[in-house]
């Protein structure tokens, strides 16, 4: 018996239609598809929509010595929020966030509404409320424990309105730290830890540097980069000593972008 051999490589048109179908199945109800790009090519290329997708949950944890408090993770989240327009809802149960620091990465105090909940359950409930409402552009929540069900609920609420949901994982006890590694329904998972900054020629310290790890990314690939911390507009940057080596000269990059 002989039959026609199955072609190993499908024609390109079929691939495209398949991709479109999978897209429809995965996030067909998602309203706002515009993603929030970082402006850092190696990072944006790994993300499925060329940036942080709206209408899904993103999870950010700290790393290193101060992992539990995650000051770098909080600023990373604030930097993301700073690059949007509109109100930001920040739900927390331990009010130790220092607002002047958020203002220094470009998140103006007029934009942030804080909810100080008495426990984490209420933090999640308030986040869900904010996401379902759709008024705030970004909803940030600080939690230690996050179950699969809870993160899925947040995803569903965010999907309807296209809000960007950010879960900041923070903990104070070691058993809570173990919980952070468990799977959740978040679309991306980041770990932001401090990294030694480039030494200055004079005494003093320069711009902070972070190790930005994209540990998990649905529909994309992982990344591990060393970047300069958010500036006053919430933008990350390549460390100057590295960018000279690896990235293309600025003129060439501008050209490439213009032709794209």
């Amino acid at each position, binding site marked *: 018996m002989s039959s026609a051999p199955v072609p190993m490589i499908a024609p390109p048109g079929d691939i495209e239609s398949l991709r479109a179908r999978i897209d429809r199945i995965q996030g067909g109800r998602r309203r706002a598809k515009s993603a929030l790009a970082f402006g850092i090519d190696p990072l944006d290329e790994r993300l499925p929509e060329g940036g942080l997708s709206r209408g899904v949950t993103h999870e950010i944890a700290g790393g*290193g*010595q*101060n992992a539990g*408090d995650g*000051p*770098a*993770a*909080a*600023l*990373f989240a*604030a930097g993301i929020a700073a690059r949007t*327009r*509109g*109100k930001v*809802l920040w739900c927390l149960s331990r009010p*130790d*966030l*220092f*607002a*002047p*620091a*958020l*203002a*220094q990465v470009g998140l*103006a*105090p*007029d934009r*942030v*509404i*804080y*909810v*100080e*909940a*008495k426990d984490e359950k*209420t933090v999640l*409930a*308030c986040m869900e*409320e*904010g996401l379902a*409402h*759709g*008024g*705030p552009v970004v909803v940030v929540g600080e939690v230690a424990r996050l179950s699969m069900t809870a993160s899925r609920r947040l995803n569903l609420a965010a999907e309807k309105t296209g809000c960007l949901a950010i879960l900041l994982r923070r903990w104070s006890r070691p058993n809570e730290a173990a919980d952070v590694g468990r799977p959740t329904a978040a679309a991306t998972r980041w770990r932001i*830890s*401090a*990294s*030694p*900054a480039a*030494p*200055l020629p004079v*005494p*003093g*310290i320069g711009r*902070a*540097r*972070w190790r930005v790890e994209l540990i998990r990314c649905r529909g994309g690939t992982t990344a591990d980069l060393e970047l300069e*911390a*958010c500036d*006053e507009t919430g933008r990350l940057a390549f460390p100057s000593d590295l960018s000279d080596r690896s990235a293309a000269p600025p003129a060439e990059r501008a050209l490439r972008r213009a032709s794209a």
Partner: protein
Amino acid sequence: MDLPLVLIGREKNRRVVTATDSAARAGGLRPGMAAATATALVADLDTEEHDRAADAAALERLALWVLERFSPIVAVDGTDGIVIDSTGADHLHGGEAAMLQALVERLAAAGITARAALADSWGAAHALARNSAEPVLVAPPRHGMAILRPLPVEALRLCRETSEALRDLGFSTIGDVLAAPRAPLALRFGTQLTRRLDEACGRRSEPIEPLRLPDTVEAQRNFAEPIGAAETIARYVGKLVVQLCAELEERGLGVRRLDLLCRRVDDRVEAVRVSTARPVRDVSRLTRLLCDRIETIAPGFGIERMPLLAPLAEPLSPHQRLAALTDEILPDVSSLIDVIANRVGADRLYRLAPVESDVPERSVRRIPALAPETGETWRRDWPRPARLLRRPEPIETLALLPDHPPASFTWRGVRSRVRAADGPERIFGEWWKRDAELFAVRDYFQVEAEGGERFWIFRSGDGEDRGTGSQRWFLHGLFG
């Protein structure tokens, strides 16, 4: 110096002292004393006629103020108190203790010295407020009679003859009365005593007949067949809100506080209060806010009457949302604010605004979430940490005095070597706030540890003069 003041009233045929201020109390004057004795005891005594009608009117005005601000069920309690059913309203003030504290503070700001207690029953709260509260007391839930035993018998709200007779018989505390057999007491003093005892320990219900503000916008519905299911309540809430909003529209008002009272067949009133940050007249929003709280209503054997009142309403007029076609409309979050505020309490929902102060913990103040946007922000000349510890934590350091950052430090048992540092940023105490800060100085440094973590540490004092601080080192914040 003010003279001691007492109020003199007529009781039967005697002129007696009816109220004293603290100066007069210090002089040994007590209510119930003959007026002549009082004037003889204290030389420069200021006496005023006691105007009971004015007193009652003022107390009622005060009760109405409490009704507007704090709780839907408020009534005047005797001649010197106000009784509040806090169920269904304390969530708006961040819990029971916080609500009482806020109430006493607000009254103090208005020049009224008040004491407040919260207990399981009206009788117990009445007794505790007058005898144990200093100035606030929250009795633990299901406290029973144990908490009342040490209190004097007068705390039971008995008529004067009964309490005096009890005293004559040697009963001085409520515990004494409880220890005695009940039947002879009832025989001797009538049912008043046993009724008051039962009410105090919650064996007998005592409904509070709530005060009503004159001219309140209201809608209500009577049920021939008592209702109890949550869905049924929700359905009628929806109908009531429509009715109320029509009435509000006629008067051009929007609600700030909305009370749903559920009168049960057993004569108890279950109340739900919701508040809004701005005047609202939107049917779906108000229904949503009320329906969120239905789970807190205990319908018992059923609800037979459901009034919906708006004790605080403010003018609401249409306003223009955008001035030009090119303006971008940012989504309105006020409805979200209301939903969350009714869940976690309005004081837990806030924005942070800058304060002109160099002392970090004073540079931030909370403002209402919907306060007008000012565009103000903090000064950017010095970096500030992302997390500020609630209070600075002492660290052990190795540092050169006077201006050098530490070479290493130990915080929470972890030793870190300092790679690089920036500073000092000298912050002076605010002597106009506290005398202790007259010479106080803090020298802040931003230090980077070997792993790249950045910390905000300070030395209390300028490194030379002991008068400026203890010269010890503290960690105050974590940079991102």
